[in-house]
């Protein structure tokens, strides 16, 4: 996935002079995950540059550049270091179009390496999506595979809205044979990642892999058919694919790493029970991280939702 995002950035920069990549260590180093590797060498220091260590300033800078007609693609180095920029996102990035009566769209794509599962210390494994998705005026997307990463990034950069682009670090080293450029479904739409008939499982980011693995096991060991929906876009939510699926299966489980309370599962459960009430054979269940701070690395394996926790929930929703 790192290569796909890198290619997405490079192609966007090649296509449009106004695309700028900046952040902490994205220049000469090429980013702590090498996502921006080679961009400074290829496009020069004007197009790809390091900033001082100041996240609010980085997003603020992007807002000003967007006002001047640029398409900034700032990186915030890790999920946990996006929080100092929350005020700039909530008070400005999300509201600028509105406050300017449409005259100042924010063409900003904020890339954030996100989520857990890579054995990192505190603050490097956060799931910040709720903070952004609750904020009207920004789009929040998260790709689960390299093709989507490329395609959704290109679409985000080329679009007219501010996008919070959450990259699942745990999938950074996943590979896929890709002929680039690749265009997948529009990034505001969910996709059925695996069709099935018994239970709808909604996931995004790294949890899509977990859901697909669970579907494999469920099929093989229990003859249970899971339909996996990859959400892709976390805000504004498009739940048509989910609702379609639930109307067929009658059962729904949402999986995410974020703590349960007010994680995306809450919103999805609320919408599904409202709009597919009479189709539901069982309550919508949530398979999530716990309502605790993200644990130290040696415990992330037991903390994070995995195949077993998900299959437990599958069993529960299938109970007569």
């Amino acid at each position: 996935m790192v290569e796909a995002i890198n290619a997405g950035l490079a192609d966007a920069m090649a296509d449009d002079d106004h695309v700028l990549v900046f952040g902490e260590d994205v220049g000469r180093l090429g980013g702590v995950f090498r996502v921006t590797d080679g961009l400074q060498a290829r496009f020069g220091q004007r197009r790809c540059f390091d900033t001082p260590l100041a996240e609010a300033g980085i997003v603020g800078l992007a807002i000003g550049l967007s006002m001047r007609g640029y398409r900034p693609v700032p990186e915030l180095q890790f999920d946990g270091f996006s929080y100092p920029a929350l005020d700039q996102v909530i008070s400005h990035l999300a509201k600028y179009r509105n406050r300017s009566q449409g005259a100042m769209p924010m063409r900003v794509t904020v890339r954030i390496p996100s989520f857990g599962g890579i054995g990192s210390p505190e603050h490097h494994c956060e799931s910040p999506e709720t903070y952004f998705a609750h904020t009207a005026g920004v789009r929040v997307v998260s790709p689960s595979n390299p093709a989507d990463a490329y395609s959704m990034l290109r679409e985000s950069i080329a679009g007219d809205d501010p996008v919070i682009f959450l990259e699942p670090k745990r999938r950074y080293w996943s590979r896929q044979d890709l002929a680039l450029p690749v265009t997948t479904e529009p990034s505001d739409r969910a996709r059925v990642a695996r069709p099935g008939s018994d239970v709808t499982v909604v996931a995004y980011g790294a949890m899509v892999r977990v859901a697909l693995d669970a579907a494999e096991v469920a099929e093989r060991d229990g003859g249970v058919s899971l339909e996996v929906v990859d959400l892709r876009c976390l805000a504004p939510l498009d739940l048509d694919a989910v609702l379609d699926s639930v109307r067929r299966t009658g059962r729904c489980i949402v999986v995410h790493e974020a703590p349960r309370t007010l994680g995306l599962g809450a919103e999805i459960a609320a919408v599904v029970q409202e709009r597919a009430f009479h189709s539901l054979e069982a309550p919508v269940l949530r398979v999530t991280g716990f309502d605790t701070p993200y644990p130290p690395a040696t415990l992330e394996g037991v903390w994070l939702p995995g195949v077993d926790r998900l299959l437990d929930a599958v069993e529960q929703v299938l109970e007569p």
Partner: protein
Amino acid sequence: MAITDRAEAPVAASTLQVLAPDGAVVPGARYPFELSDADHVGMLTAMTVTRRLDGEFVNLQRQGQLALYPSCLGQEAAQVGITSATRDNDWLFPQYRELGAFVVRGVDPAGIGHMWRGMAHGGTGLIEKCCAPITIPIGTHAPHAVGYALGAKFDGVDTVAVTFIGDGATSEGDVHEALNMAAVFQVPCIFVVQNNHWAISVPLSAQTRVTDIASKAAGYGMAGVRCDGNDVLACRVVMRDALLRAREGRGPTLIEAVTYRMGAHTTADDPTRYRSEGELELWRRRDPIDRYRSHLVAAGIWTAQHEERATETGERAAKRLRDEVFDAPMPDPLSVFDHVLSRRSGELERQRRQLARETGRDAT
């Protein structure tokens, strides 16, 4: 506790001044000889109109037409002096008290009224005049100015970004990050601190340990300059220099304009709770309009006719503002769904239909 000490001190010696409070040219001052008589008349007219309009905004608030208004009374010289030095395509990033800047730029005051009446966030008619929307969260707009300036630098044009902040704003982290980035990137950005000695009820001495905000520039490796903010010519001179520096690619400047908030923080505030009448009286004697008028009258540039015309212009502007505010139609309820994103999601369309039903409107 001497919380008003700084506001009561005479404006410090290192502070650039052109006109003494009585309007006389300070010996050895850097007088802006490049200004034509028309320039001078334009500036004093703008200050006069600003004061008249400012009073009208306060009236309109008292009459229940506006929810709130932050008066710029006493700060006309700083705002007009600074802004009149800019080109029309230099971008201004205001806080919320910059009526004088808008008057110079020719922004329709009704657009400002729309903001305080609660009709349009950020005001209307600003962007056309290269003014960013009015910003309420203190200091948060400073990084935007830096970004804008960086873009201008990348574009190879000599456009400058100018951001107005208050003495209180200097305490905010965002302002620090902006100052630092502006210096590191050497962008054409000017930070104008209107040091009006108060942040609501908090005096300068409780905001920062230094008495001289311009001295903060050195820590960023940036030019810093302090001027008498009630002396319109001093403001004009330092701004002219800063603009030149910016246009020549010599980087950002921090300007401290030492002035005073003569009114309440906003119409919702009661300053008698926290500051003395004596302090106010002292600053009344440093009134920026009286000072400039004395000077121009003595120089034979400003006549009774000019005074009359400026007063008239102010009256007309005030009347127009009053009419436009009173006549402003209620915004369409469904407009709350406009300009959220470039297109409405399915869920937002559903919500919009709901409000259309509630308000008996057509959602199509």
